[in-house]
């Protein structure tokens, strides 16, 4: 069996809000250059895990290593550029598609050339004439594509996807899935992807983390979802845990 360097490693990580434990203790790795899906019932702490990965949250206890370095030693803005995140509802800033694509660079007082912007758009399967469309005029699938392209502008080594296909129709879902696979293959980007769809988790993911009530109950290659060892995972796969 091939072993992979961990892109992100959690060691006894705990996180709580006002004394109520949300996750942990969690110990596990997201293999570099691979697609890991994060599945589990609602409220399992999946989004919390993503936010811990790019420093939008900090753990109460334990250690998170990003490419071998303690997360606290990385400057927050540099960390978030390295570990990019596409949010569930793909929020857009006011203005055109170009304004949204240029946003990551403008935050660093740089500009994105139109040629580069078109190339990012084409990378996510959108035609060049979308560049000057208003972001508010985009469909759900197009918003998600622009959101992914906007995250790519930062040349992140690790991409976090928070249920980016949950509100999309079957066609758009397939397009986004093949887009993520392409990004992973083309740039060798590590992908960590929250999904509710187990079929998607098995077909897209190389590896899977199953979270239940803030605990990492099973982890390994995605096919573990076909024959789960843990009773809670079996119930989740059967649809008894939502």
């Amino acid at each position: 069996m091939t072993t992979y360097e961990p892109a992100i490693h959690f060691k006894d990580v705990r996180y709580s809000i006002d004394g109520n434990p949300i996750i942990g203790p969690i110990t596990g790795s997201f293999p570099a250059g691979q697609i890991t899906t994060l599945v589990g019932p609602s409220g399992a702490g999946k989004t919390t895990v993503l936010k811990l990965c790019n420093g939008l949250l900090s753990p109460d206890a334990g250690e998170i290593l990003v490419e071998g370095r303690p997360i606290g030693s990385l400057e927050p803005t540099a960390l978030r550029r390295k570990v990019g995140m596409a949010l569930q509802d793909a929020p857009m800033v006011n203005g055109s598609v170009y304004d949204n694509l240029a946003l990551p660079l403008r935050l660093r007082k740089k500009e994105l050339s139109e040629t580069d912007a078109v190339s990012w758009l084409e990378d996510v399967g959108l035609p060049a004439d979308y560049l000057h469309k208003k972001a508010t005029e985009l469909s759900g699938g197009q918003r998600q594509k622009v959101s992914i392209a906007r995250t790519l502008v930062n040349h992140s080594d690790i991409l976090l996807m928070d249920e980016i296909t949950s509100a999309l129709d079957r066609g758009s879902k397939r397009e986004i899935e093949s887009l993520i696979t392409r990004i992973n293959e083309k740039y060798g980007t590590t992908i960590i992807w929250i999904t509710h769809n187990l079929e998607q988790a098995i077909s897209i993911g190389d590896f899977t983390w199953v979270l239940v009530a803030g605990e990492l109950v099973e982890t390994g290659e995605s096919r573990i979802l076909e024959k789960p060892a843990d009773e809670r995972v079996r119930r989740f796969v059967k649809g008894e845990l939502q």
Partner: protein
Amino acid sequence: MSPIALSLTLIFVLIPLLLSRTLNLGLEKDTLIATVRSIVQLFAVGYILKFVFDSDSYIYILMMIALMIFAAVHNASKKGKAIPGISWKITATIIAVEVLTQGILLGFGIVPATAQYIIPISGMVVGNSMVLSILFLNRFTSEMETHRNRTELILSLGGTPKQAVHTQLTDAIKASTIPTIESQKTMGLVQLPGMMSGQIIAGADPVQAVQFQLLILFLLLTTAVVSSILLGFLSYPSLFNERMQLIRQSND
């Protein structure tokens, strides 16, 4: 005004009381409390002002202004509980605005440095700064709540807290200062300002009353804009920690 004439003004309190009673509006208690409080507070202030004017001491003037600021901060702080240390931020804002405006007025000799001018003008500046602080805090906290995902988006793309709140901050500053600017556009057409009306009733020359009113209007313009901006830039850093994380995150 004779004591009898003053007593007769209570008719204007009796009218709402009777209407409230007849229509079961339930406003009697609050109306009575408001009436008694305004009588006691205004007379108390009147006698204190008389004492301060007679003594002509800067210490008493400063004490009066400190009292006004204390009351204004106490009132405005209730609206910004979500922002840590808001009382100190409002105090710093109001003091800065008071120092700036009085500095210009007294420094350029626009008004004489006497209690008769300093105290009423300070009252208007501090009161206006308090109202603006409340308007700003109301708007800013609701903007932050409504556009939480926008804040999170900018942070997740590697933006700083200042960049993450920029739109919400400028929207709140604009929204809180617009009423002051708009009301100045119709000033004199829709309503005669209170201070000007008071001066005219007291027998002052209307043109001189207008000159003083203009001074106050321009002063309040600065007060409004500076209060909102200053409070805005003092407030937003408290919403983030040293790791540039929004404090009190919501999670799945």
